[in-house]
């Protein structure tokens, strides 16, 4: 029952918001819809926590420890983003960057996007997983071009074409997977169910699955934003409205990585080698290094943090590829803390660029004096994302580093180099922005407090103390992905 509400709430909200349009109470409906989704997500998590993994809807849905925590995270961040976007989008509307139709479109598509991601997480069918992923892309394409500036349209076109091409490769991989599964599991829908595939994985033909994984890696890897398939990511993040950047970075990348990891589990079961893991480690490490060095030369604040997203997804991909209980645990935790931290950073960055009417870092100054919440929020967010203790990102990166030293020592220097360069890049750019006097062109604004503080408090709490239920959850998920 919570499962049904979890999927129905965003879909219903999307329809309602399409009709409500630009009326005054539309943002409140948006928040209410996301809150209902979050409550349903929590209820589902409690159900799975007490009753174990469950199949529902004629085996169409499958919920276990791995996807339920991501579903709760998705619904939570979508709720806080909805709260943030109320003030943010109202200001954008007042400044005339979005019109009447733009607002209607924005709200409806935001909810549809959340629905697509939740469907992606909860479905048991590998084919439907692909369809939901494509739907998530399509629902955000026109959100990226919402401002209709030449650069926004260019970014959206790039996003549409590159992700379309990428995701097509993933479909070919899925077809190959079906090709192999059909012989073992028989024709029809049964052969694409993840629960069946994982059970029978050692009977699947390893040569076909190895080939399938290459296509799945390229396909879903494009959506994760891994180098060299990442070109769409900085453009889409920097040109779209900030709430969209927050959910793209905090949620969509996670969901794509989730899809990849689910597929990897099947391939591993068939090949019994570290083949898929090695590919993921390679892509992950290249992403960490290229993204870290790219961050050094960015001028646009949102572009810099989108490269940071590529870097962190690289870390998680690398850790999943490395395998083993510690690295997998670290990767799961990393997905959680990165998502919370990065979306809170985008919230503060959005306000900062509204205050200065630019995204150029050189022109943003005196944030702490101008608006303490935005200034301190950005500073603590940046501290968290570069992996300073006591924030949660430190814990996850420390776990991953420990596992790397143990299992792949030759990779350690590269990982450390990437982390150090990212550390330097962000710290160097953030410091002048938050300190100093308030420039004359800075305009005061009413910032959204709750989302920023809530996210940062959670990241801090996760760094200091690991709640036992979350710990158990991650252990269960590690067991699933073994």
């Amino acid at each position, binding site marked *: 029952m919570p499962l049904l509400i979890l999927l129905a709430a965003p879909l219903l909200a999307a329809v309602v918001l399409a009709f409500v349009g630009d009326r005054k109470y539309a943002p409140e409906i948006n928040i209410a819809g996301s809150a209902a989704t979050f409550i349903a997500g929590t209820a589902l998590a409690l159900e799975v926590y007490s009753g174990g993994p469950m199949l529902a809807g004629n085996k169409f849905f499958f919920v276990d420890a791995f996807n339920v925590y991501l579903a709760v995270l998705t619904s939570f961040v979508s709720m806080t983003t909805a709260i943030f976007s109320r003030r943010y989008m109202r200001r954008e509307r007042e400044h005339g960057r979005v019109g009447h139709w733009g607002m209607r479109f924005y709200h409806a598509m935001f909810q549809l996007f959340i629905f697509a991601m939740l469907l992606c997480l909860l479905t048991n069918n590998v084919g439907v997983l692909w369809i939901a992923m494509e739907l998530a892309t399509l629902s955000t394409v026109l959100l990226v071009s919402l401002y209709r500036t030449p650069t926004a349209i260019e970014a959206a076109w790039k996003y549409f074409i590159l992700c379309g091409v990428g995701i097509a490769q993933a479909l070919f991989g899925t077809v190959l997977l079906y090709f192999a599964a059909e012989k073992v599991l028989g024709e029809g829908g049964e052969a*694409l169910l993840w629960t069946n595939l994982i059970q029978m994985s050692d009977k699947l033909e390893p040569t076909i699955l190895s080939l399938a994984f290459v296509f799945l890696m390229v396909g879903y890897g494009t959506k994760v934003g891994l180098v060299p398939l990442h070109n769409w990511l900085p453009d889409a993040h920097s040109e779209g409205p900030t709430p969209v950047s927050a959910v793209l970075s905090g949620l969509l990348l996670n969901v794509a990585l989730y899809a990849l990891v689910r597929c990897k589990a099947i391939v591993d079961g068939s090949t019994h080698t570290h083949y898929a893991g090695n590919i993921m480690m390679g892509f992950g490490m290249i992403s960490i290094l290229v993204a870290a060095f790219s961050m050094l030369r960015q001028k646009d604040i949102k572009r810099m943090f989108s490269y940071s997203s590529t870097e962190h997804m690289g870390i998680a991909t690398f850790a999943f590829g490395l395998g083993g209980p510690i690295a997998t645990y670290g990767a799961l935790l990393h997905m959680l803390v990165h998502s919370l931290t990065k979306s809170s950073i985008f919230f503060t960055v959005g306000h900062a660029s509204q205050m200065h009417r630019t995204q150029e870092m050189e022109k943003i100054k005196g944030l702490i004096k101008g608006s303490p919440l935005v200034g301190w929020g950005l500073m603590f967010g940046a501290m968290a994302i570069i992996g300073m203790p006591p924030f949660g990102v430190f814990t996850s990166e420390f776990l991953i580093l420990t596992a790397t030293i143990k299992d792949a020592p030759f990779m350690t220097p590269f990982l450390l180099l990437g982390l150090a360069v990212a550390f330097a890049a962000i710290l160097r750019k953030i410091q002048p922005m938050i300190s100093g006097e308030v420039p004359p062109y800075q305009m005061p604004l009413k910032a959204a407090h709750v989302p920023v503080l809530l996210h940062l408090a959670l990241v801090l709490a996760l760094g200091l103390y690991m709640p036992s239920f979350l710990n158990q959850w991650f252990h269960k998920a590690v067991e699933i992905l073994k």
Partner: protein
Amino acid sequence: MNTQTTAQIIGFLAAMVLLTAFGMLVQRRIYGLIHLFAWQGLFLSISTAIVGYMTGRHHLYISSVLTLTLKVILLPYILNVLIHKLKIRKEIDTVVNVPLTMLIGIALVILSYHLTAPVRELSTFVTRSVLAIALATVMIGLLMMITRRHAVTQIIGFLAMENGLFFAATSATYGMPLVVELGVAIDVLIAAFIFGIFFFHINTTFDSLDVEYMARLKEED
């Protein structure tokens, strides 16, 4: 009709799909491209129906009709209307010259056969060799998207890629589950709406559908 004959018919249709893919690679006029795309869809639809008949999997008939309406009638019609409304230039330039593109295309076909060789050896389907052609069609669509610098041709390349995928899903594997095929069809339809909107946006913003003009987002030094 015995399996041997049907396999031959499907082999013939696969060859036609590949031929239209190459045709699109060299075609310079936009209307010609759309016609070729429609023909490719038609071959795809017939092949799907024949596989459905041969294997007795009747849900493939639905896929076949879906392909016919979507890719042979609806999408070419939408594209025609858009081109007419936006008054697009009929000739299009390529970045890489045509003979070179053809050679790359041939190399891609060989690569596809090489990549799918282990799969073909293991398969028991009579249509297994279609998989290589499907992959080649996907790759040629990709090549088209890279070499053409025009929004409409990029979209046709994208749709040709989708055709290749659909060919793999229906003919090479005797059809994916219906829910997947329907979902893919809906996604293609939504994508069609989105690129329609995009054509208008790009045209009004850049006064052209040439994507060469879209080069503002770059890494600065």
